[in-house]
């Protein structure tokens, strides 16, 4: 019930609104009650409103406003990329991205696969109903 993910230096967050939608960033400093300074290995350090961030469970061990090199090293040590891609939230986002990038042929193949799977499930269900 109490809060478990806090805004702190080193908290990894996901941007959920704006130009950098979907990007994983690290909170590097807190500017005031509404804004934070965020940084990621592939972007320019910039300020962002807390409302545009969704906090994750991952934390990185850094000092306030580290140099880019130190940030990258700390992110490697904390293994952010792997942790994120293994977490259920990260996996769901990857699946969403894949689904959005399907072309028409892929969607056709997907439809066939779904039909096949549904047929197998229905067969099993009919067998269970018969014995019940």
């Amino acid at each position, binding site marked *: *019930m109490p809060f478990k993910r806090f805004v702190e230096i080193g908290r990894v967050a996901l941007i959920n609104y704006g130009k950098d939608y979907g990007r994983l960033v690290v909170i590097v400093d807190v500017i005031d*009650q509404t804004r934070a300074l965020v940084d990621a290995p592939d972007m320019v350090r910039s300020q962002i409103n807390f409302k545009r961030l969704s906090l994750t469970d991952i934390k990185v061990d850094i000092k306030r406003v580290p140099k880019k090199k130190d940030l990258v090293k700390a992110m490697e040590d904390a293994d952010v990329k792997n942790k994120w891609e293994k977490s259920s939230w990260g996996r769901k986002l990857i699946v969403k991205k894949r689904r959005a990038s399907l072309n028409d042929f892929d969607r056709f193949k997907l439809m066939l696969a779904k039909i096949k799977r549904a047929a197998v499930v229905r067969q099993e269900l009919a067998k269970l109903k018969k014995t019940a």
Partner: protein
Amino acid sequence: MKNILSSETMNIPDGVSIKVHAKVIEVEGPRGSLVRDFKHLNLDFDLITDDNGKRKLKIDAWFGSRKTSAAIRTALSHVENLITGVTKGYRYKMRFVYAHFPINASITNNNKSIEIRNFLGEKKVRKVDMLEGVSVLRSEKVKDEVVLDGNDIELVSRSCALINQKCHVKNKDIRKFLDGIYVSEKGTILVDE
């Protein structure tokens, strides 16, 4: 300005069990159980055990204004009152004050209501029903005293207020006509030395 976090904790004594769920606090102890609902407050209630293993109740206010930060301590006080109500109980004593006409009070309805006659010589009989869980007795040994007992401080004190308000003097100078039934003592049933 908004304080990012203001929080306070209080110790929970042994002998009481507290349940907190969705801002409804239920306290159970030797004298019974009491429930209080804090849904009108914007606070987080938490039961934690601190480093020494003692149980505590922690109340947080995130980004609170002055008023919500002030509400933290009052909520703790309300919980403290629940705890003492359930361990010691509350006993409020009221005295009859009259100059000429003796106030005649009789306890009816198995200690659940009081009837007041001859207040200022009036023919009107005033009947006051006690609230739930509150019992009223005529005090032996002390003349003109009435004792109200109960677990919930809100109900006991409100019953006292109801009795007091029924005996207000009308159309007279109240500085001269000081008759009435007044709360003389607020205490607990079990007194520890």
